[in-house]
C-alpha cells in the first residue's frame, strides 16, 4: 500500500464536521446575537424578539425546555425544585407573551401544570401515614425521564453508522445478457377459480353439459395417446397396466373405447382371434376405426411396415 494520504488533521476525513456538532442540551448557546453566543438568558436586558425565537426553536417543546433548566443547574431530575424551576419557566413564558410571540399551546399547558404542582407542594401534607399521598411531582418527573430517554435514544440512533454517510453499498458492473425472464407462478386456486367462471358462463348456454366422466378416465386417455404418440402399432394387450388391478384394466379399456369412438385410434386385427394392434389414426389411414382384415389380406400384413 502506497503513500498515506491524510487530507486533514481530523481522522474523519477531508471535511467532516466536528464529531459532536449536534446540539447538546446544556452546552448549547441560546442564540447567536451579533456573532457572540448567548449562553445565559440575560433576564435583566432587553432581548431582541428574534433571539428569543431562536432560543425557543432550539427546544423540542416544554419538556425539553424544562430538562434544559434542570441540567443547567446540575440538578437531578429526581429532586427537581419545583418552585425555582417553575419561576424560571414562567419567566420565559411571560417574556414570550410580552413580546407577543406566538406561543405553542404546549408551553401554556406545561405552565399550568407547573403552577399546580407548586401550589400543591405548598400545602401541608397530612401527618398520618395511612393517607399517604403521591408526591405532586411524581407525574412530572416520570414524564421528564420518559422524554429524556427517547431524546438520548434519538442521539444514539443519529450516531449509528448509516448508509450514505458512513457506509456505501458496492455496485460492481455486470456484463449484460445474463438475466432471465421468469415464468409467472400460479396457484392451483387461481386455476380452479378460472374453471368455475368458465362453468358459470357455460351453464348460461346450457348446450354444454359436462358429462359424467371420471378424471382418471380422461387422464388414461391422455396416457394411451402418449404411449402411441410415435405413430407405431402397439399390441392391444400391452396397453394394459398389470399393477393396477381390475380398476386399472377397466379404465384403460374405457379409455381405448372412448378414443376409438372419437376416431383418434384405430384397432386392427389381421384375422379373427389374432392379436389386436392399436395405433394413432393418421390422415392416410382408412376411415374405419376397427378393421378386421380378410384372411388373405392378413397374410401379407405386417404391422411394422404399415403403409
Amino acid at each position, binding site marked *: *500500500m*502506497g*503513500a*498515506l*494520504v*491524510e*487530507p*486533514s488533521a481530523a*481522522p474523519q476525513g477531508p*471535511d467532516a464536521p466536528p464529531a459532536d456538532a449536534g446540539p447538546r442540551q446544556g452546552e448549547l448557546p441560546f442564540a447567536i446575537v451579533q456573532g457572540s453566543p448567548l449562553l445565559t438568558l440575560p433576564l435583566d436586558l432587553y432581548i431582541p424578539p428574534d433571539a428569543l425565537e431562536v432560543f425557543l426553536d432550539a427546544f423540542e417543546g416544554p419538556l425539553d425546555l424544562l430538562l434544559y433548566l434542570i441540567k443547567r443547574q446540575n440538578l437531578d431530575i429526581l429532586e427537581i425544585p419545583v418552585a425555582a424551576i417553575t419561576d424560571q419557566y414562567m419567566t420565559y413564558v411571560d417574556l414570550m407573551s410580552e413580546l407577543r410571540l406566538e406561543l405553542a399551546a404546549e408551553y401554556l399547558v406545561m405552565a399550568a401544570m407547573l403552577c399546580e404542582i407548586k401550589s400543591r407542594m405548598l400545602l401541608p401534607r397530612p401527618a398520618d401515614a395511612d393517607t399517604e399521598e403521591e408526591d405532586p411531582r411524581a407525574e412530572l418527573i416520570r414524564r421528564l425521564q420518559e422524554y429524556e430517554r427517547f431524546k438520548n435514544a434519538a442521539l444514539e440512533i443519529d450516531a449509528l453508522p448509516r448508509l450514505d454517510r458512513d457506509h*456505501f453499498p*458496492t*455496485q*460492481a*458492473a*455486470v*456484463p449484460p445478457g*445474463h*438475466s*432471465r*425472464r421468469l*415464468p*409467472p*407462478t*400460479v*396457484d*392451483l*386456486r*387461481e*386455476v*380452479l377459480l*378460472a*374453471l*368455475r*367462471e*368458465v*362453468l358459470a358462463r*357455460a351453464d348460461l348456454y346450457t348446450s*354444454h353439459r*359436462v358429462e*359424467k*366422466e*371420471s*378424471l*382418471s378416465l*380422461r*387422464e388414461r*386417455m*391422455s396416457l394411451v*395417446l*402418449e404411449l*402411441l*404418440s410415435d405413430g407405431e402399432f402397439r399390441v392391444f394387450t400391452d396397453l394394459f397396466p398389470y399393477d393396477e388391478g381390475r380398476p386399472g384394466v377397466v379404465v384403460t379399456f374405457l379409455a381405448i373405447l372412448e*378414443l376409438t369412438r*372419437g*376416431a*383418434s385410434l384405430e384397432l386392427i386385427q389381421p384375422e379373427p382371434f389374432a392379436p389386436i394392434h392399436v395405433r*394413432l*389414426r393418421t*390422415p392416410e389411414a382408412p376411415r374405419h376405426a376397427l378393421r378386421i382384415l380378410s384372411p388373405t389380406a392378413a397374410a401379407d400384413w405386417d404391422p411394422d411396415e404399415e403403409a
Partner: protein
Amino acid sequence: MGTPSLEHICEGALLAAGGPLTLDQILALFPDEGRPTRDAIAAAIEALRRGFEGRACELVEVAGGWRVQVRREVAPWVGRLWDERPQRYSRALLETLALIAYRQPITRGEIEDIRGVAVNTQIVKTLLEREWVRVVGHRDVPGRPELLATTRRFLDYFGLRSLNDLPPLAEIRDPAFLGDELDLGEPKAPMGDLFANLVAVTEGSGQGPEGNN
C-alpha cells in the same frame, strides 16, 4: 483499519461509484491541500488492478475511466439477480389450462365451444413451452385438430399425484368452496399447503370421480 491508504480510497470509490471513474474524478475526492499526484493515483490503480486478479471482479479501463466489473465467468450467476419479474397469467390462459386439465384430451375447438371465445394461439404456445400441456394426438375429424393434455410436469408443479387429486367439478361450482374462508395467502410457487387443504376438502367429501351438478 486506521487511516486508509490511497489504494483503499481508490478501491472504495471504484466499488461504490456504480460506474467508471476517471483519474480526475478520483483526484477530486481529495481536498486541495494534501491532494496526491496523478502518478500516485495511477500507481494505486495499477496496484489495485493486480490485487483484483484471481478474484470475482476485475478492474478494467473503459471509455469513461476505470470500472470494477464482475468477471465474465461469474456473470451467468450474478446476472440472475436481475431476472425479470414475472407477469401474471391472463384469465384466458388459466381457463384454458383448467379446461385441458379437466376435459383432456381436448381440442382447441372444444375449448372454444365451452369458453365461448376463440383460443389465442399464444396461450396454447405458452402452455406448451411451460411444458404443462402437450399434444397427445389428433382427432380424426376434418382439419385433424390437435388433442391437448396435461403433463407429468403439470401435476408436479401443482403438487398433484394424479388428475384425480383435482377437486370434482361439483365442488368447484359450490360457491362456498374456494371462498374467502379458504384464503390461502400469497401464491407461493408449488403449493404444498394449498393442495393439502384441497385434498383434505375433496377427500373428506368421499369424492367420486367427477361429481356432476
